[in-house]
Every structure is written in structure tokens, then in C-alpha cells.
């Protein structure tokens, strides 16, 4: 079973709107990373947030981490059609592997 679970599993919004995706995990983590994947393509690293950080920004992306609730959220502001992709969170717990959540499929309508 996967460490990270994302919700919603699918999200459809209009261009210009904000998109929020959530990820929950089960065990203690060292860091959490968010990735984007265009259909059938590679995984693109978006942002890493450490366990001692609560919020991080990168361009139109804002990631929050709540270790007490074992959850993270990814906010994409002013979405564009090019943001259409699947978004995954992956957690690192100090072992030699990352555990991925099930992903959120985001569709941004022009």
C-alpha cells in the first residue's frame, strides 16, 4: 500500500482559477516532494519541503506541510492550460526509497 494518498484524484478547473491538491501520509518523514507528470511522460520535480518547514513557495506553487496531521497540500495559483497533468507527492523517511501517492489528475480548461 502507498504511504501517500492524494485527494482529489481528479480535478477540473477553469484557466485562471487556483487548484489545490492534498496528500496524506502515514509515517514520519524527512521530506516530502511534489512532482508533475504529463500524460505518459517523465516525472518533473516541482518542490521539496523538509519536515521542519511549514510552507514553501516557488513561482505559482505553494506547498504546505502539517506533520501533526501528516498531510501536505499543493496550491497552484492562476492555473494555465499547460498545468494540465498528474501531480504526485512522494515521501522520504530516511530509508533508501521514496513512496508515491496515487496522484491527482488536474485538468485546466481554457
Amino acid at each position, binding site marked *: 500500500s502507498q504511504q501517500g494518498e492524494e485527494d482529489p484524484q481528479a480535478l477540473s478547473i477553469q484557466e485562471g482559477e487556483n487548484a489545490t491538491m492534498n496528500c496524506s501520509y502515514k509515517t514520519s518523514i524527512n521530506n516530502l516532494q511534489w512532482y508533475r507528470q504529463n500524460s*505518459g511522460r*517523465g*516525472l518533473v520535480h516541482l518542490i*521539496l519541503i523538509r519536515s521542519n518547514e511549514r510552507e514553501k513557495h516557488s513561482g505559482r506553487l505553494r506547498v504546505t506541510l502539517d506533520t501533526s496531521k501528516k498531510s501536505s497540500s499543493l496550491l497552484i495559483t492562476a492555473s494555465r492550460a499547460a498545468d494540465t497533468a498528474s501531480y*504526485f507527492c512522494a515521501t522520504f523517511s530516511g530509508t533508501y526509497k*521514496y513512496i*508515491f*501517492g496515487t*496522484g491527482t489528475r488536474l485538468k485546466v480548461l481554457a
Partner: protein
Amino acid sequence: AAGVIQSPRHLIKEKRETATLKCYPIPRHDTVYWYQQGPGQDPQFLISFYEKMQSDKGSIPDRFSAQQFSDYHSELNMSSLELGDSALYFCASSLIGLAEPEQFFGPGTRLTVL
């Protein structure tokens, strides 16, 4: 900047055949990870190597084996291929010596088993 390189990018094999996937990590990265992503699925961890030694193992079938060589490149060998092995195989690398290693993925190898 150099990225993770995977070859081949696409591979078509028949059932019961053997496939070898190659991964070249980012220079100076000491850890390599292999993941399998089936259609519509999330990436599943298969196996990882740190400094050429197997460091962790996930849900990797016994028909699969992998190793990391002295130049840090890694190969995933898959034998007796089954239809269900058709998937996107990703390799990733990181510098585990950092307190919070960031993982970088290659473009993936799409394996189709007919």
C-alpha cells in the same frame, strides 16, 4: 545541467523474452532508484542502490534483478517477461549524503510486452 539518462526510451518485447534497462545517474549522485509505473498507476518502488550496494527493495518480482556498476550506472534486468510487465520504468538518482536528498528522475523507459 546533466540529468538522469535512461536507455532505451522505448522497448518492445515478446512474452518470455528478456529485457535490460539502463540508467545513468547525475554525476556525483551516489544513490539510484528504480520505479515501475503501470498505466494509470502511481510509481511503485522496485529497488535502490547506494554506493553500488543494494540498499532497499520494494515489490520487485524475482524475475527482475538489478545492479549498480563501478561507474554508478545501473541496469535492471527483466527475464521471462509477462504482459503485466508492460509499464513505464523510471530511474532516479540522488545524493543521499545530504540531509534531505532531492530525487531526480530520468525520462523513463516505456516497455511494451506483446
